[in-house]
């Protein structure tokens, strides 16, 4: 059922080219939103891998993003690592953290895991205020430097971030796709849908779960580092509980097993506040109503999606003439 690596790579390159032209044709603000979409795609991929495949729930991926973000920033801030190396350090640090957490998590089922990760999301970011070297509420600067000279003097920083985030998203997409279609991906699926038979057939469930958690954490860490790159700043308040919820939401809107849907999910969570804002401005009216409209619309959409398209807002299906077999 999988397409060949080459075919996927070609498709991703085609998308990259499309994004390149897209980035040149819209306003700087939209380019910025594009960068945000790309980093959400990465974060949502990490949830799809974890929940959609290995069957573990995390409501605390925002905290793992924070781990990656702080690792990248500290490396750059104190050891002056290059931008690329900082991002790699983010992945490794978050993965290492995920390894420990995954070890604890592998013992836990469903709601217990949800509860633990939820407590983590609430507890971890506030640690930054405890230790002076983490920069407190005001945060630490994270400047990966201006775009390289050969891109021209008119090349905006926003576009540079958009490129980095998009490229990272495409690479992660490729890697995760291949991972999910490797031995590990099949093991995870077997484990999720039939844990007992998976164990009988020789899969080490605990180790397999820990591996999924570790990789997922690393991917989330990258998203976190990219997030603070676009902010140029790391601060604990950039990683609220609502961030963790937002990426789980995005993953569900995407269709939790549908890697390609990550783009849809990311687009929706970035676009909704914007659209709601436009509606609120058009509708006018009392401030307390318009201020709560974006939250209202997002929540309503979430409920409608989970009720009527629990496997994701499948745009692909709408475009397709043949009816997809139910899985």
């Amino acid at each position, binding site marked *: *059922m*999988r*397409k060949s690596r080459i075919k996927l790579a070609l*498709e991703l390159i085609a998308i990259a080219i*499309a994004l390149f032209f*897209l980035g040149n044709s*819209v*306003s*700087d*603000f*939209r380019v*910025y939103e594009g960068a*945000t979409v790309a980093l959400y795609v990465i974060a949502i991929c990490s949830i799809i891998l974890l929940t959609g495949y290995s069957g573990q729930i995390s409501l605390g991926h925002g905290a793992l993003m924070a781990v990656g973000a702080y690792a990248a920033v500290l490396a750059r801030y104190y050891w002056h690592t290059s931008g690329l190396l900082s991002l790699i350090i983010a992945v490794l640090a978050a993965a290492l953290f995920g390894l420990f957490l995954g070890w604890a998590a592998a013992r836990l089922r469903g709601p217990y895991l949800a509860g633990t990760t939820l407590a983590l999301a609430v507890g971890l970011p*506030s640690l930054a*205020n*405890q230790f002076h070297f983490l920069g*407190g*509420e*005001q*945060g630490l*600067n994270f400047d990966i430097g201006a775009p390289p000279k050969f891109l021209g003097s008119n090349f905006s*920083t926003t576009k540079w971030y958009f490129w980095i985030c998009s490229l990272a998203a495409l690479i992660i997409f490729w890697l995760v*796709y291949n991972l*999910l279609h490797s031995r590990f991906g099949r093991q995870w699926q077997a484990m999720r849908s039939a844990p007992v038979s998976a164990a009988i057939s020789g899969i080490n469930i605990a180790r397999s779960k820990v591996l999924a958690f570790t990789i997922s954490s690393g991917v989330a860490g990258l998203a976190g580092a990219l997030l603070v790159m*676009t*902010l*140029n*700043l790391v*601060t*604990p*308040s*950039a990683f*609220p509980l*609502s961030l963790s919820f937002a990426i789980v939401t995005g993953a569900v809107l995407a*269709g939790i*097993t*549908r890697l*390609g*849907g990550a*783009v*849809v999910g990311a*687009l929706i969570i970035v*676009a909704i506040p*914007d659209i709601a*804002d*436009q509606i609120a401005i058009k509708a006018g009216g009392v*401030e307390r109503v318009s*201020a*709560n409209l*974006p*939250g209202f619309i997002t929540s309503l959409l979430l409920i409608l999606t989970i009720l009527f398209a629990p496997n*994701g807002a*499948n*745009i*692909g*299906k709408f*475009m*397709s003439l043949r009816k*997809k077999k139910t*899985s």
Partner: protein
Amino acid sequence: MFAIRSTKRAYLAVASLTVGALTLSALPAQAFSPRSEAGVSATTIKLGITTPLTGSAAPGYNKVPAAMQAYFNYVNDNGGVYGRKIQLTVKDDGYLPTAAVANAKSMSNGVLAYVANLGTADNNAIAKSPVVGLATNRIPSIFINTGYSGFADRSKFPTMYPIFPSYMMEAKIMGQYIKENFAGKKLGLIYQDDDFGSDALAGFKTAGVKFDISIPYASGSQSAATGAGWVGKLKAAGAEVVVMFGVSSATGAALGASAALGYKAQWILGSVGGDATTLKALGVPAAVLTGSIGASFLPGTTDSKDEYIKQFQDINTKYNAGASFDNNVLVAMNSAMLTVEALRAAGKNPTRESLMSAIENKGASFASAAFSPILYSSKSHVGYSGYWFGKYDSSGAMLPDGGTYSLYTTDSGAGGVVKATIKRPAMPAKGLPNNS
């Protein structure tokens, strides 16, 4: 099982969706003629604010935009600023730096300046973001709603104009006040364990005040139970005078626990958490608030003998229906008045540059309700520099000790604290600035 085979179609769909969405929503942003200054048309001046309207940081602060708009509407109804009407674009950031940056970015080409953006982390994020380019694009961010001391540093934040005395200056002044009035007493301090609190610690240190017990608390953890814990510690240490340098909810928790435990200490409340209306809404009994000492740079909100307060209350009744006149509203209207003066001083056709140079060159003479002098100059972005101390009465109103406001001023560095006489500019007639 695998849905990935439909990815190609999904991509197509997503790509077209993206292009569609982006082009559609990109259109209205280009409404301005490219030559004119951002945010200024023949008939309007647009300003922008990003601040929490929803979420846990919203209560209280969510009143700021409406109160500012109320004052602007009052000015607009009375001729505007050289004929132009002021429009305030309001964006909700839920107190999240990511949202604040996105908001600032979305407004960056459509407004002349940001005004009264709230919060240390959010303002810092906006300033640091190369995507917004606050300094490189020379976008003014005026009268920001935070007292973090770092923002007055011109070299780091060249287009940012804080107006409140920094938390550090407030603590320094409070330290002097304590030394003068409570020498030899056992001192306690409760502070927020982040930059807000560390700013305060630096100020108390400069003032040479040593606390017998200091209790940090994590932002957001405050509750009735934590309050009881703090008071238990203060009691055990025998603190007679306690400084509460925290947000309203923490102040409420501390005072509530103090009442419940029958703890009799002289409380001194920092200005951030000292708004009586908010404290009462937090359930602080009048009995414990009465007699507590508060610090402010503005007159008491109930002091309707004060010409500014009377005028602002008037505007609040007519243009801001339903809002109770508390410190948030007062601060917002005061900043709005300063904004109008800055716009007038920026000339008949204000630009971002003329606005900033107006604040630097003429800002020190702007009329406002504050008793404190303004220190803006071509070398300094420090706004207000002074505080007065008063006691809360049984209605929650803060009244000056002995009936007359006495002011302490200081600088933003290591300079001393001095008792100063109040030389406040008279309010322009009807509260409508007429400066130039």
